[in-house]
């Protein structure tokens, strides 16, 4: 392991690797320390959707900027990340839903997002296998520029590009302490030696709480166990991600043809538990079969689990903390870390290298939990 660098990033998921790329592109010497392999946490287990339809204005802006980067990313990184824009179709179930959808769509359009409210007929034009009655829906909202990317390809493409720019990656290396001196970060201690750095980024996903605690910083994040299934491959029948905030379901057909999706498990489990449950599998299968009856004939080949790193307002915690110079937070994505990573990495790299702040970073600072003025994001699935 090298002895010193400009920035140490704890966590080799999409956010750690994207940030390593953006920092090294700006000339900083970066070391990423990852306890297992890259993508081994939430990144490699996620649905990998990229959505811009949010209820909180800041999330729409951040997601739109991320999509703009995603559109160029294969070219920028020199490797295909599997980004496909098949849109997100969000079920509208009743009049109350419709009023919220109209409010969201008006706000999203005011920011320049292309998004529409669909009739039941238009829903089945876009995703022919849907049974609108079975969904208990009266319509949907649809944004054609939403989509998904391959989480493995994207993360590895970022990491490879970062490596070409001089970034160091230490996999299978565990951070055991954050070293500080008189209110400033001085380094990280690992099971393979110490690394001296003036800046440490906490991008450890569901384990960020533990990393923060090593620096004496308390964060309000809670890990939630989430479950997901994948089917065998079939011929391409739909391009959109289908989701419902009421049922909490999301599913899409991936590049290779498999259908992948999740839903909140019937029993909520917090803490570091990764066992898959039969009750989830049954609930997911029943709901998916109700949404798209034709999928009843398709085989499920695997179910697995991962964590949402959830904050009290379901929005990430980004940027510096009071009282410890050089300790930068990049976690608490609450299930949306993959889709936001490209833009978040740029914002944090600008902050770390140039000291450039931004209103969005300020609004997502850890300090917001000290006052009551919190804008809750309601548009969460899975």
């Amino acid at each position, binding site marked *: 392991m090298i002895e010193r660098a400009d920035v140490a990033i704890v966590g080799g998921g999409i956010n750690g690797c994207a940030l390593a790329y953006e920092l090294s592109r700006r000339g900083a010497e970066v070391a990423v320390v990852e306890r*297992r*392999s*890259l*993508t*081994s946490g939430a990144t*490699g287990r996620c649905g990998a959707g990229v959505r811009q339809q949010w209820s909180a204005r800041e999330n729409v802006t951040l997601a739109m900027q991320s999509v703009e980067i995603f559109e160029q990313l294969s070219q920028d990184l020199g490797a295909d990340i599997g980004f496909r824009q098949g849109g997100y179709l969000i079920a509208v179930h009743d009049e109350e839903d419709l009023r919220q959808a109209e409010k969201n769509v008006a706000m999203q359009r005011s920011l320049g997002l292309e998004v529409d409210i669909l009739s039941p007929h238009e829903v089945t034009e876009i995703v022919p296998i849907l049974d609108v009655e079975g969904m208990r829906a009266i319509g949907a909202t649809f944004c054609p520029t939403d989509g998904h990317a391959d989480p*493995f390809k994207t993360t*590895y493409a970022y990491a490879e590009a970062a490596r070409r720019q001089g970034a160091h990656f230490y*996999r*299978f290396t565990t951070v055991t302490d954050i070293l500080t001196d008189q209110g400033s970060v001085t380094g990280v201690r690992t099971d393979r030696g110490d690394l001296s750095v003036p800046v440490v980024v906490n991008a450890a996903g569901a384990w960020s709480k533990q990393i923060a605690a090593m620096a004496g910083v308390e964060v309000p994040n809670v890990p939630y166990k989430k479950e997901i299934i994948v*089917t*065998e*491959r079939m011929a391409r029948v739909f391009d959109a991600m289908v989701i419902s905030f009421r049922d909490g379901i999301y599913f899409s057909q991936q590049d*290779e043809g498999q259908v992948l999706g999740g839903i909140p498990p019937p029993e909520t489990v917090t803490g570091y538990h990764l066992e*898959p449950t*039969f009750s989830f*599998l*049954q*609930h997911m*299968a*029943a*709901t*998916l*079969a*109700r949404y798209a009856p034709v*999928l*009843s*004939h*398709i*085989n*499920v*080949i*695997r*179910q*697995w689990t991962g964590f949402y790193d959830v904050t009290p307002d379901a929005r990430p915690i980004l940027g510096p903390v009071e009282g410890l110079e050089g300790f930068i937070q990049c976690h608490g994505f609450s299930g949306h870390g993959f889709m936001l990573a490209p833009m978040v990495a740029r914002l944090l790299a600008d902050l770390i290298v140039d000291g450039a702040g931004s209103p969005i970073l300020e609004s997502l600072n850890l300090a917001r939990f000290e006052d009551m003025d919190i804008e809750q994001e309601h548009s969460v699935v899975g």
Partner: protein
Amino acid sequence: MTIICRCEDVSEEEIMKAIEEGCRTLDELKHRLRLGMGPCQGRTCLPLAARILARETGQTMADVQMQTSRPPAVPVALGLLAGDSRD
């Protein structure tokens, strides 16, 4: 060319190249190549891939950590899992 993972069409040459590029575990081979991600869920290919990994990285078979096995044990139709429940 020797095919190791029949479901995802991964050859021995591709596995060797990924190891040369730095892959050290079966999980990393999976991330890079989709090894073991198809309908058989690695039941055919993983022991073969583990052997190649051990040989190329100087580990014993016992050192090579197997991928996590997850349900269902065999592919099951979605409709069968949905059963009679009315979610």
